[in-house]
């Protein structure tokens, strides 16, 4: 390799930032600007993926930057979980950029330069979160991610949008400063370090009932994981343009949330330590509650994007649930589900956006028969939905398999029952819509005649739909890699 691995980490963090600057400079020429975005995305993906072989061989590349506080460095260390998140985010950014170009141009959106700049910064933040070697570094990038996505959510700029964006930002910043930050400082004051250490750093340092308090502070403080009742920001953020929703739901934001929770469980608490604390049951209950309740709310939605938002809330709690079952198989399942959900959900959002661009429709009730006008889009949507439900041969089946395996290892019947119930509920809110889209006659005439959305969008959503199949077929190397996280 030409660069050392530390250099590679450094480039992974700085490429999107340079990209942001270049996008700003190229703002006046849309074609150049979009080329810059795509080039940056491809460069980032190449750089990030170049670390995968090292990781598979058991390497853990590190990079140390300045010392922020005595004993607390801004440092990066790539481990399997972060590798997965970074590879996922950087890879999907390419697809998302292709899609964005179609969407933003097809919709004649304003302030496109600001949009692409903030997107690039958000990606830098996501990579930062993924590669952090300690909780402090992670927290920094977590906050950067929140702030850089605010202009994206508020993109439309009208009163209602700004109000929703305020909810988004208020909840995320509020929980992170109000709960995550003190939880982190508390951890530091008892453990004397914040490094992510295999096996955890809290064993023997803290006892019940304080473990429960700290655990809840983390789970609620990491608001991006959207565990109820900290979920309101996600439906509020639906006012954003669809590529941003895809960024939030599939690429970066919510993934950063569940990633952080998994990381805290595995590397801060340590799963063996946490398993012996009764309070981890509390998190299982919370996750199960969120899964079931969000599915019921999704059943009652008529707006397609809101339905998807509630579906995401449920799917995120799958990850939280898997992580809090604290069995080896379920921890692997947590990371697998991050990936499977990403492919499925990005397809669903791409499809919803394509429908909006082509027909300007947002309500499910208006979409009967739309599958005949947009067969590619709706087929991709159906595949994404099957992945959410967990039907083979889609990616969702694989991750559910691991999670179920973990639950059986623990004889955790609550988790098992919740997973079964949720599968049925997912089917109940997705399948009727898909049937109606393909089989019924169109009863609400579109404003103008339309076929498929612009080709970059169709290409993007077809590609991501294929990814869910690919994940089903070729998940083994990923599972092997993720199994390493439990090695002390």
């Amino acid at each position: 390799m030409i660069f050392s691995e530390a250099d590679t980490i450094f480039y992974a963090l700085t490429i999107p930032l340079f990209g942001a600057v270049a996008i700003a400079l190229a703002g006046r020429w849309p074609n150049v600007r979009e080329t810059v975005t795509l080039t940056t995305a491809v460069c980032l993906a190449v750089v990030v993926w170049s670390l995968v072989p090292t990781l598979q061989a058991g390497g853990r590349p590190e990079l140390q930057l300045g010392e922020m506080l005595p004993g607390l460095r801004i440092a990066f260390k790539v481990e399997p979980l972060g590798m997965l998140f970074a590879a996922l985010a950087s890879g999907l950014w390419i697809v998302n950029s292709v899609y964005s170009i179609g969407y933003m141009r097809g919709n004649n959106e304003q302030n496109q330069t600001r949009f692409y700049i903030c997107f690039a910064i958000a990606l830098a933040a996501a990579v930062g979160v993924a590669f952090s070697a300690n909780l402090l570094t992670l927290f920094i990038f977590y906050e950067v991610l929140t702030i850089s996505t605010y202009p994206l959510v508020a993109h439309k700029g009208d009163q209602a949008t700004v109000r929703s964006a305020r909810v988004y930002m208020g909840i995320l910043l509020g929980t992170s400063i109000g709960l995550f930050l003190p939880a982190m400082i508390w951890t530091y004051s008892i453990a004397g370090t914040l490094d992510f250490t295999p096996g955890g750093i809290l064993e023997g340092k803290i006892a019940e009932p304080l473990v429960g308090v700290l655990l809840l502070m983390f789970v609620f403080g990491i608001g991006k994981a959207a565990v109820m009742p900290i979920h309101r920001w996600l439906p509020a953020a639906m006012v954003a343009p669809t590529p941003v929703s895809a960024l939030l739901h599939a690429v970066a934001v919510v993934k950063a949330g569940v990633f952080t929770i998994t990381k805290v469980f595995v590397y801060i608490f340590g799963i063996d330590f946490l398993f012996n604390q009764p309070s981890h049951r509390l998190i299982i209950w919370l996750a199960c509650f969120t899964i079931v309740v969000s599915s019921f709310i999704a059943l009652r939605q008529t707006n397609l994007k809101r339905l998807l938002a509630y579906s995401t809330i449920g799917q995120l709690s799958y990850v939280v649930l898997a992580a809090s079952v604290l069995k080896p198989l379920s921890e692997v399942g947590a990371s697998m589900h991050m990936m499977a959900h990403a492919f499925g959900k990005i397809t669903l959002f791409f499809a919803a956006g394509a429908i909006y661009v082509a027909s300007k429709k947002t309500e499910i009730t208006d979409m009967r028969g739309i599958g005949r006008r947009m067969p590619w889009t709706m087929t991709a949507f159906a595949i994404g939905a099957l992945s959410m439900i967990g039907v083979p041969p889609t990616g969702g089946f694989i991750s559910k398999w691991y999670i179920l395996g973990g639950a059986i290892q623990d004889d955790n019947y609550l988790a098992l029952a919740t997973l079964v119930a949720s599968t049925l509920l997912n089917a109940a809110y997705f399948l009727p819509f898909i049937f109606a889209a393909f089989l019924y006659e169109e009863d609400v005439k579109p404003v103008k005649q339309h076929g498929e959305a612009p080709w970059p969008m169709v290409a993007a959503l077809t590609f991501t739909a294929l990814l869910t199949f690919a994940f089903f077929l070729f998940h083994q190397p990923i599972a092997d890699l993720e199994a390493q996280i439990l090695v002390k």
Partner: protein
Amino acid sequence: MTLYDQLPALVVVVLLFTAPITYMLRLHGFPWASATAAAVTSFGVACSLAATTIGGETIIYEMGGWPAPYGIVLHIDALSALMAMLITGASSAALIFGAKSLADEVGEETAPAFFAAWLLCTAGLVGMVITGDAFNIFVFMEISSLSTYVLISAGPDRRALISTYRYIVMGTVGATFYLIGVGFLYMVTGTLNTADLAARVGQVEDIRLVLVAAGFVSVGLAIKAAIFPLHSWMPNAYTFAPNAVTVFIAAASTKVSLYVLMRIDYAIFQNSITNHELQLTFFLVPLGVLALFAGSLLAIYEKNLKRLLAYSSVAQIGYIALGISMASVAGLTGAIVHMFNHGLIKGGMFMAVACLALRYRTVNVANLAGAGKAMPWTMAAFVIGGLGLVGVPLTPGFISKWYLVLAALDEGWLGALLVAIILMSSLLAVIYVWKVIEVACFGEPRANAVPVTEEAPLVMLIPTWIVVLTGIWIALDTSVTVGLASLAAKTLLGVAL
């Protein structure tokens, strides 16, 4: 004897001697140039003092060679050096930044007197932090106060005069209270040298006079430091002073009184009076908490941007007061770091406000709609400053908050409550900062407003961004600020280094 040995005196002498020269310079631009040169020189000296003290050394300099306790000594340790760096740095930055805006706001004829007063003000503030003599502190306090009144009354709005008058009344009461307190201490101990006082106060038999003295000193300094509810002079003084003056006094002046409070409470009283920390717990903690909430709420409902930031200062001083009152190394470190960091953050923000004021001719938040597009660099600086007030990581505010929360966690259940309060007030800061950002960056300009298309001039933007970037730098590399502050905290508490 080399010049190097005289550095401790030079940091203030340069300023004092340049002041009359500045007053005599009548040519256009010269008073500013001479004041700036003096301030920058003094800043350089302060930095070299900091470099000496960061190793844990304390510099004792006998004025005129008269040994203590007969003569006056300068007593410079890590804390003094950090404060001197803050004051002279703020003074230099505000002067360099104010080259254009001060020429705009202060008339040609008044310029020499104005800049002479500026130097005297800086000299007074620096004098207060380096002297080792309680009465000397009063003398320097009066020098700085009197010249601050001149600076504020130079504001273009006539309401500046009324604000100055209110400040004079409050400031004089504060200084007098301090003097009365010091007088009592002199009566019972027969000395004014702080080190000597620390040694002798403990031997006083009738403790009642000492307690009365402590009361007078604390209340007097609380007025000067604008600790809630004694802050009422501050918002209008900040609002109506010339913009560059606001930058300077917001960054430095209240902090110096907090410094004196800290010095006298810890160096003199803490080890001499039994249960002295109760005074901190029952006096400073409630005031600090009140300040956090009252200041933030007032800021949330304020429409004038300068006054909004002034109320935010009231809240931020609450943090410092809380840190001081915790009487632990982490708490004092947090308080001291926050003095420095907040000075930097607020200075930078008032610079951005001055840029906005130059173009928009108003600092009403509602009229600043569209500023994000018209003046992107200025608003970016403002946003970074605002995030610093909230305490977002990568900003200096995060470092201060980290230490304050760490200190509060050591205080048991009451500490958990304090953590909650500190964080809640951070969230209030989100509201008042975001209120401005939303209007300026995402709002549409009013239909009847005069459109602003020009960014602030580079002579203002560059100093603003130097301050902002310095802030980010000291948030990433805290070895100097936290290093000096933890050293200072340990010295004040008498913990082994």
